[in-house]
């Protein structure tokens, strides 16, 4: 039973009807009539999905970006990275499963892969701390990026977090410093860094691994300075105003493309990545391969300078 978002009700109704008809048709002699009806409904539901998804509001995009069946970092890694060899630990305190990282080959190139993983059932969500990275996770990311730098491997990061973990223990271990240092390491790398926002790009927790040469966004992913709920509770003094906050913050991929924050939007299958994860992963792989190829012949100083200049130039266009 797929998960439907609240605005997908018409889609859910149609797909429910189709399932019902198919069930009726299975033992019946009137099979042909039913097959005909199913085909009609099928065409209708496809139109419905298309129209719904071509005019999603910012808040609906947020919901799609958080969809529980949306492909996560582990799915992108499984689909795109050959010989993936996970590496663990920050060498100072702990391993943090909210950050997956390791060596592998992507589009045939040896590379370092880093991704924020939210988990997709109760057990794995707890294991991955819902994708909320702790200081040791960011320190692990720094270690892996520096390892890649030493061996001249490009770094690919998959961004998907509501934000860095805000607990007391995280504060005790210097969450601010860990994020700051990760940003600094990103900006120091003399190897290409390509980041893909696959779901939620949540604030400092996201930029910590996304100060990249190229920042790509899946079509229905979002990227913002604070969650819409957080923004609403501060500026509107009510978390209920999250829809308005999502709209006002301009956090969708197309707005971020216009603001020159996002370099490329990776189109998702009609109805969102969760309707066809394999197709979404493949589209992402093609885009990543293209950007890696684009960057691979630049020398270290040039690739670093280009990354820094890109960020220094940000903010010259508004909406």
């Amino acid at each position, binding site marked *: 039973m797929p998960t439907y978002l609240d605005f997908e009700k018409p889609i859910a109704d149609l797909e429910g009807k189709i399932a019902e008809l198919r069930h009726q048709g299975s033992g019946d002699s009137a099979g042909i009539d039913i097959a005909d009806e199913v085909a009609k409904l099928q065409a209708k539901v496809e139109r419905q999905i298309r129209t719904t998804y071509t005019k999603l509001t910012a808040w609906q995009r947020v919901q799609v970006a958080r969809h529980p069946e949306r492909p996560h970092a582990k799915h992108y890694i499984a689909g795109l990275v050959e010989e993936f060899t996970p590496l663990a630990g920050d060498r100072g305190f702990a391993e943090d499963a909210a950050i997956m990282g390791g060596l592998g080959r992507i589009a045939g190139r040896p590379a370092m892969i880093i991704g924020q993983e939210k988990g997709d059932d109760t057990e794995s969500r707890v294991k991955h701390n819902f994708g909320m990275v702790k200081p040791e996770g960011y320190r692990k990311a720094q270690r892996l990026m520096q390892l890649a730098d030493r061996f001249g491997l490009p770094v690919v990061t998959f961004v998907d977090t509501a934000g860095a973990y805000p607990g007391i223990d995280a*504060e005790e271990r210097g969450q601010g410093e860990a994020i700051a240092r990760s940003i600094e390491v990103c900006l120091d790398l003399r190897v290409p860094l390509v980041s893909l926002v696959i779901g939620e790009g949540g604030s400092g927790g996201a*930029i910590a691994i996304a100060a990249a040469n190229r920042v790509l966004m899946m079509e229905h992913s979002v990227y913002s300075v604070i969650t819409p709920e957080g923004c609403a509770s501060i500026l509107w003094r009510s978390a209920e105003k999250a829809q308005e906050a999502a709209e006002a913050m301009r956090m969708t991929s197309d707005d971020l493309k216009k603001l020159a924050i996002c370099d490329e939007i990776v189109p998702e299958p009609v109805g969102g990545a969760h309707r066809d994860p394999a197709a979404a992963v493949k589209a992402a792989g093609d885009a990543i391969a293209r950007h890696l190829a684009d960057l691979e012949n630049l020398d270290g100083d040039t690739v670093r300078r280009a990354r820094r200049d890109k960020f220094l130039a940000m903010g010259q*266009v508004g909406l």
Partner: protein
Amino acid sequence: MNWLTNFIPPKLKALVARKEAPENLWLKCPACEQMLFHRDLDANQQVCNHCGHHLRVRPLQRLPHLFDGGKYEVHTVPKPIVDPLKFRDQKRYIDRLKEAQSQAGPGGDGIVVASGQMEGQPAVVAIFDFGFMGGSMGMAVGEGVVTAARIAVQKKAPLILFSASGGARMQEGILSLMQMPRTTIAVREVKEAGLPYIVVLTDPTTGGVTASLAMLGDIHIAEPGSLIGFSGQRVTQAAIRETPPPDFQRAEFQYKHGMVDLVVHRHELRKTLARITAILMKRPAAEAA
């Protein structure tokens, strides 16, 4: 009523004349609740003379105490585009900005960049203004840091950052988040030029400012009692359902957890900064003042 409020002892005055007392003459210490006379506070660099609490100061109050003879140069910061998202919550962002600017003076926005001599040592400072929209870091503040860093490199002088910020300027959306990498690049380039980058963490320093330029200093100094942390206390409590310890995210907590080198009284800041930068830059010791 001035003659009266000037002669009645603070505690009594608080009882009899709370409403009539002009706010600019007397101030209640937020820590010990003693009434403090503004002239005494000014003379004491806004440190409570009863309990030593460091009150928040705005950049123009801090500057004269940092530089020799109270002499310094304020540098203009290039203006970024205003209100890039045409943001509106219950109020238009552009109106909020105008309101804040009418108090801060024209063109001001959250940061002041200045340079001068500290105990004979040249220094460039960038001072966050918490009084301007909570010291939130938007494009103008980011530009201030970039400018300060460039001046430091030009002058071959150390860069000293005084942080005071509630975090990102949410009304500038993603462009405010991008000030984290932008300011990180700016201070990185000061370090790469072989110059010291020193951070003085003041009350309060939180959010995206803590998670970028404020935690990347070669040396971290904190003013006593300052709130310093990444996530807001309400966020932490909501997430953890646990009451934080009483010194949570204070300067002394950050010192204990290894994030701060020194906790320094405001009166000692200039000397400490001058001593450290002179040693790092292998310059002769400053003349005893």
